[in-house]
């Protein structure tokens, strides 16, 4: 009897130890990264869409009946819609910031510049949200709404600028890799020439590859300039985004062609 009790106690102690260890190993907090921030944004965006539908229905009823109850309902749904709109903007700006943080190859000063701008706007939205519940009439709410609407162009500007910084950093990193490969292959051709072998064909092909690379660089610079010229003007934002995208696609295409030429050079060297 005593032995059985002792074994049961031992089993219980080991179970407890195992449980505490497992709990200690499991992460208590999940890392906040772009994916997490983006999921937060999507979640809030969905809440906003739903709140917006409710707001439209309430607005319709208010315009139809003009009663006090329909006005109160309209005020409440409008308040909720504005709150969810603010949350959507806030989480969206946060997702942009996380994207900037996680993209490698962005110049430090550029990254810090947009961090400051995005952080400022997130802080503004936070304080703006606090003022929303105190609005007692549709007029008050209308004034508060127009405060955020006044910042709409700035948010779009920040968004397009951040996208530009991110995609250009990515493309630039790829371009540097291709440049590195060209240099290494050039060294190989020089070595072959120093060994006394004929490298005329290889050199001609390398010049062609370099020309394609130069075209890629040209298009990349064009895209960078377009992103640089984006202002708070909405038409400059969408036009700039579209034409910069086209330039980057062309740059990518030239990089692909450069790689194809370089592959041919390698094949030729190996077959010689």
């Amino acid at each position, binding site marked *: 009897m005593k032995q059985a009790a002792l074994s049961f106690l031992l089993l219980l102690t080991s179970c407890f130890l195992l449980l505490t260890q497992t709990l200690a190993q499991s992460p208590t907090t999940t890392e906040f990264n772009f994916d997490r921030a*983006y999921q937060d*944004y999507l979640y809030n*965006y969905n809440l*906003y869409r739903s709140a*917006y539908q409710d707001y439209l229905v309430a607005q319709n009823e208010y*315009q139809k009946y003009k009663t006090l109850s329909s006005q109160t309902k309209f005020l409440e749904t*409008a308040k909720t*819609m*504005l709150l969810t*709109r603010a949350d*959507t*903007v806030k989480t*969206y700006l946060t*997702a*942009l910031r996380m*994207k900037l943080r996680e993209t490698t190859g962005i110049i430090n000063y550029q990254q810090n510049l947009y961090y400051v701008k995005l952080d400022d706007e997130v802080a503004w939205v936070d304080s703006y949200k606090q003022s929303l519940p105190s609005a007692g009439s*549709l*007029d008050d*709410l*209308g004034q508060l*709404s127009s405060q*955020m*609407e006044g910042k*709409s162009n700035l*948010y*779009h500007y920040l*968004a397009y600028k*951040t*996208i530009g910084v*991110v*995609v250009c950093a*990515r*493309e630039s990193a*790829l371009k540097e*890799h*291709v440049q*590195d*490969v060209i240099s*290494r*292959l050039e060294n*190989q051709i020089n*070595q*072959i020439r120093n060994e006394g072998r004929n490298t005329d064909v290889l050199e001609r092909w390398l010049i062609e590859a370099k020309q394609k690379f130069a075209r890629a660089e040209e298009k990349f610079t064009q895209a960078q300039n377009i992103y640089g010229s984006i202002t708070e003007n909405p038409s400059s934002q969408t036009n700039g*985004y579209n034409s910069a*995208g086209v330039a*980057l*696609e062309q740059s*990518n295409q030239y*990089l*692909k062609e450069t*790689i194809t030429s*370089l*592959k041919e050079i*390698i094949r030729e*060297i*190996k077959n010689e």
Partner: protein
Amino acid sequence: MNNRQIILKKFLMLLLPLIITVALIFLVIVFRANVVIKNGNKVTPTPILTPTTAVSPSPQTEELDKIGNDMKEIEQDLETIDIKEIELLPPAVDMNVKLK
């Protein structure tokens, strides 16, 4: 011919082909493995077994292979790179709310 001689004869008849076969295999192995003198010059025969140590490639070939591998990676990146970041485009929230 007594019984012992008959048994010996039968035994030899059985054993002889076996000995000849083994000797032939042995000769073939020796012939292939040893250096063959041909027209007064030493000719290295092709080894029966593949060499256990592979011939190391020249530094040039190694570098070319490295460049080739890097290019494959770049090609993959070029195929998968996102130059639009559509998911980062601003949300379509109503920024012209009319509270009337």
